[in-house]
C-alpha cells in the first residue's frame, strides 16, 4: 500500500494490513446486502435454498435450507461451485454454527426414478424447508423453479452467486452430499464416487459398463448415454 501523505486527514485511522482478504469481505457485504433487500417489516427472516447432485447419475439429490442471522459475518461464503472443496469443508461447520437454522432434504434415486429429477429436486427442497426449526417469512431459491410451500418462494436465477443465504445453502447441500457419496464409495469403490461424486465422468461410465448399476444409480436418468457409451467399447 502507498504511504499516506502528510496532509492526510487525521480522522482517518492509520493504515493497517487488512485482517481479511478485502475482496472476500466486499463480496460478503454485497451478497449480504442482496438478501437484506428482501427483508421488509412484514418479512423479517428469509431462508436460502439450493440443491446439489441434480445432474449426477448416482446418489441422491440433496437440498439445504439456511436461515442466517443479521450480520452473520460469514466471509468467504460463495456459490459452492466457485469455492474449493477444502474451503467448503472449512465453511460448512462455520455456517452450521452461525445459522439460526439449517434444514436438509434428500431425494433418493428411487424417488428420482419415479417422479423425475425436477420433481425429486423440488421435493428435496420442500423437505429441507420443513426440516427448519424456525420458519422464515420468505424463501429465496436458486434457479427458476418454485417448490410447493406455504411460505412465499422467490426463485432467483444464479442465486447461489447473488444471495448470501442461497450461497450458504449451496455449500451445506454440496458438503452433505459429498459425505453421502463418500459413504457410498466405501460400499462400492469400483465407481470411484470419492472423485466423481456420482457424476457422469468417463471413468464412472466405464465402471457402469464393466460392473453394471447399483440401486443408487438413477435407472431412469441418462440411461441412453450409458448404453451409447457401452456400445462404443
Amino acid at each position, binding site marked *: *500500500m502507498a504511504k*499516506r*501523505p502528510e496532509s*492526510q*486527514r487525521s*480522522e*482517518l*485511522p492509520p*493504515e*493497517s494490513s*487488512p*485482517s*481479511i482478504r*478485502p475482496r472476500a*469481505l*466486499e*463480496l*460478503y*457485504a*454485497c*451478497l*449480504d*446486502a*442482496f438478501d*437484506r*433487500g428482501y427483508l421488509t417489516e412484514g418479512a423479517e427472516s428469509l431462508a436460502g435454498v439450493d440443491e446439489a447432485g441434480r445432474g449426477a447419475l448416482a446418489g441422491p439429490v440433496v437440498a439445504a435450507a439456511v436461515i442466517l442471522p443479521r*450480520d452473520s*459475518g460469514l466471509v468467504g461464503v460463495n456459490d459452492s461451485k466457485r469455492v474449493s472443496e477444502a474451503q467448503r469443508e472449512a465453511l460448512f461447520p462455520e455456517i452450521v454454527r452461525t445459522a439460526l437454522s439449517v434444514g436438509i432434504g434428500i431425494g433418493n434415486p428411487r424417488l428420482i426414478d419415479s417422479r423425475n429429477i425436477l420433481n425429486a429436486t423440488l421435493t428435496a427442497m420442500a423437505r429441507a424447508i420443513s426440516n427448519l426449526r424456525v420458519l422464515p417469512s420468505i424463501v429465496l431459491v436458486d434457479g427458476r423453479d418454485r417448490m410447493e410451500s406455504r411460505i412465499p418462494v422467490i426463485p432467483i436465477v444464479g442465486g447461489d*452467486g*447473488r444471495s448470501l443465504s442461497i450461497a450458504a445453502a449451496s455449500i451445506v447441500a454440496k458438503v452433505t452430499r459429498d459425505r453421502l457419496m463418500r459413504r457410498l464409495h466405501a460400499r462400492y469403490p469400483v465407481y470411484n464416487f470419492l472423485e466423481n461424486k456420482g457424476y457422469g465422468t468417463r471413468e464412472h461410465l466405464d465402471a457402469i459398463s464393466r460392473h453394471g448399476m447399483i440401486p443408487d444409480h438413477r435407472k431412469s436418468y441418462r440411461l441412453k448415454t450409458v448404453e451409447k457409451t457401452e456400445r462404443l467399447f
Partner: protein
Amino acid sequence: MNTRELGGLGERIAESFLALKGLVVVRRNIVYAGREIDLLARKGTLLVAVEVKLRRGESFGRAVEAIDQRKLARVRQALEGVLAGMSQPLAPRVDVVVIDVDADMSRMTVEHIEAVC
C-alpha cells in the same frame, strides 16, 4: 488510502453489488452542468443515477447519516439532463448505495436505498 481512493473503492463495491441486482453500470463519474453522478446504471427501461457513500473509520454503521438531500436533488437534476439528451425514453430513478467499513477493514456492510428522490 486517501479520499479519492476511498471513493473509487466505494464505487467499485457499489458496482459489484448493483450487478447482483441486475443493474448494469453504463457510466461512471459523469458531470452534467456541474452536477455529478457517481454511477449511472441501467436495468431494462430503468435509468438509475446512483450516489455512492463510503464511510470508513469509527463511524461504522453511520454512513447512512451522511446522505444529503440537497446533494440528491442535484443528482436528480443531472439525471433529468442526461435523460433529456437521450432518444430512448427511460424511467429515471435515484438510488443511494451506502457502504460502511470499520477502521481495520474487518467489517463491511452495504446498503441499497432505492428511489430516494
